[in-house]
């Protein structure tokens, strides 16, 4: 529910005019329970991104004035947007714009890429889109990884990127795509992009490692890009015939719920995805879709 909608409803109820608009948030819960997940679909990536965030109460319910925000897309690969290996640049840019609109002081976007960072940032279209939207997209500085006690089940300690640790708010903006080991990669796997050192070792216990890192990060908001979905030969693809146009964005506070919904969209039950199941079992989120309040918006 956004403010405009509230005023409309309140106006119909005949009480809206008796309160100043700034008090409206006091009444929001009284009208409807906020959904756990918002799924927006439509042809404009920017519009559905905004719609999904608005359905969760708008960016203002996540970002406070003066916040330093990290928006973490997946831009690990030297691929073009239409190849759907990296998060859609429009989705990322819209999130950045919404953060700034909500009063964020600085919005940082980065990823520790797999291919050459320059090519990943440029070819993905994300750097340009983010800077246009008012954020910064700086390359990862290897000096800025700091050993952190994660105290997970598989990972006890790992160097993570300082920007994540120092940010006031963290927003995860992954893309839904195929992966050879994890089957589907979504939001929890996107946190590999903040891990320093030789992170390829975590593939030996991938599911538990992903649960450990993502439950440590605890993002305020997760926005899963399913505008274009790479259905095979992930995580980097390259063949346009592997890309399916789904035109959807899924947003939520609970990354386990987001990933469970994403898996379903991919045609797999969330419980079949190792890291989703483990995360749910260990109490980091809800994977049973029937237990979730899901609001679908189509534009």
């Amino acid at each position, binding site marked *: 529910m956004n403010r405009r909608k509230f005023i409309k409803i309140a106006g119909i109820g005949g009480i809206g005019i008796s309160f100043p608009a700034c008090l409206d948030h006091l009444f929001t819960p009284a009208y409807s329970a906020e959904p756990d997940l918002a799924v927006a679909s439509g042809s404009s990536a920017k519009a559905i991104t905004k719609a999904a965030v608005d359905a969760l109460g708008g960016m203002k319910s996540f970002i406070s004035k003066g916040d330093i925000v990290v928006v973490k897309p997946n831009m690990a690969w*030297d*691929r073009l947007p239409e190849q759907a290996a990296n998060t859609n640049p429009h989705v990322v840019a819209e999130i950045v714009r919404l953060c700034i609109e909500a009063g964020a002081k600085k919005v940082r976007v980065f990823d520790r890429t*797999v*291919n*050459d960072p*320059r*090519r*990943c*940032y*440029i*070819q993905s279209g994300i*750097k340009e889109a983010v800077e246009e939207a008012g954020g910064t997209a700086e*390359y990862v500085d290897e*000096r800025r990884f700091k050993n952190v006690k994660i105290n997970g089940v598989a990972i006890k300690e790992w160097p993570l990127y300082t920007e994540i640790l120092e940010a006031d708010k963290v927003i995860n903006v992954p893309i839904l795509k195929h*992966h*050879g*080991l994890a089957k589907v990669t979504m939001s929890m796997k996107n946190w590999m992009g903040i891990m320093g050192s*030789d992170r*390829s*070792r975590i*593939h*030996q*216990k*991938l599911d538990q490692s992903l649960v450990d890192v993502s439950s440590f990060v605890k993002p305020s908001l997760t926005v899963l890009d399913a505008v274009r979905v790479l259905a095979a*030969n992930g*995580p*980097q*693809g*390259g*063949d346009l015939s*592997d890309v399916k146009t789904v035109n959807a964005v899924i947003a939520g506070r609970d990354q386990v719920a987001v990933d469970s919904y994403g898996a379903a969209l991919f045609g797999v039950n969330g419980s079949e995805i190792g890291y989703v199941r483990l995360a749910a079992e260990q109490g980091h989120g809800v994977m049973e879709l029937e237990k979730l309040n899901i609001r679908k918006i189509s534009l």
Partner: protein
Amino acid sequence: MQNLRRASQGIFLLIFLFLFIQTESKGADELGYPVKFFLDFDPLIFITTLLSSHSVQKAFYLSVIVIIITLLLGRVFCGWACPLGTLNNITGSFSKRRRNAPSVNWNRAKYYILIFLLASSLFTMQLTGIVDPISLLIRSLSVSIYPLFNLSIASAFDSAYNSGPKGIVEITEPIYAVLKNNLLAFAQPYFLQSAFIGAIFLFILGLNLYEKRFWCRHLCPLGALLGILSRYSLLRREVSEGCNECGACASVCQGGAHPDTRGKWMPSECLYCRNCDDICPQKAVFFGFGKKENVLGTDLRRRHVIASAMGGVMVVPLLRTAPLSMPVNLSPQLIRPPGSLEEREFLKRCVKCGECMKVCITNGLQPSFLEAGLEGIWSPMLVPRIGYCEFRCTLCGQVCPTGAIKKLSQNEKASVKIGLAVIDKSRCLPHAHATPCIVCEEVCPTPKKAVWFEKAEVRGRGGELITLQQPRVDISLCIGCGICETKCPVQGMPAIYVINAGESRSEYNRLLL
């Protein structure tokens, strides 16, 4: 004149260094600057490549401009433009020796080197790049001097960052950011033989302390080529009757051209720096067109000419009777950049300028040592443990001055095989240790992955059944880019590595029917 010349030298050096620094990816498909510009203007590379490969890159027609200018104005390229000449000048100015007079009488050596190179290139062997001043300079900077410079600056800022006094990063980091964006490398470059190649370069610069412009006077084959042309140049130096042979000009002569003795001035050695004109107390020196005065040629000794020509001819079979030249692949690690011509044609063209190594986005292109024989020393090879070939990058072909590496479109490049990845099952985690790992498959860039999984059920030590995916390589799809080798978590000796078998440039080194 001196100030004008220095300005010209400074401008050319700055352009050269600017283009050198721009020889680096910014993430787009192209660089946006003609970074091989100075090589295009090099008539020595033009002529020797023409002789050795009977082919020519269109850009080399620019070097005809240098030839024409030399026929008009003499060796002004050496005196006014050559970046290595300018660096020699600068280093020489640190010399305590006042006089510029030659210490040794070696100036003919450069002609013998030139004759040697022309002879060997006529017989299809391209060795020019080893001593061509532009190739030598770009190679030395790329492989040695620039990495050294980068490391020194970066370490200074890193120590301020890591252990400097509190608050200093507020000052140092913004400066570092500016330097990083404009002057420093995106990532610290590392090169095989960097100390060796750097030592040769520093030795050449150091010779200036023994005799100013030692390299230009005695060794440079491009200087020799231009010197020969300079004998016929229209611009001539003349000395009027007012000359009292005081010798002032000899002490400032950059080329060691004997300006002080009437009739002994050698246009082939003159760098047209005009120092003699500037310094002459009698104002007796003039440079002018058209007037003929007898000038001294380069009195090459016939025996030496024949010996160097014969040497240039004989070096061809000498270097090619090594086993590497047999039609057997003895150097499986010699992985050439994508777009490289067939090995023999490649070596006929490559001038070891190091442009491709400088531009290589992953630092994977390295100077070879003996992998391609002595003939191919310092030619580029991919060392995937250091860096892989980025799937959608085509920069090395764009900067190659001689066409040894063809310029490929992205589509063309996607199907060029530079080698083949092979799995060492004795080290691979899923194969040898029943431990899941999928890194090679994950990073494999071909649209349909060349690394694929075979589902396997193996027993653990306690007899338990373990199901996992074991990687295999599809020979028909693998292009040998080496990202699997770069990223393989088995450190040191990787469990998957690339050999050059199956490279598409070779008729012989094929694997599949």
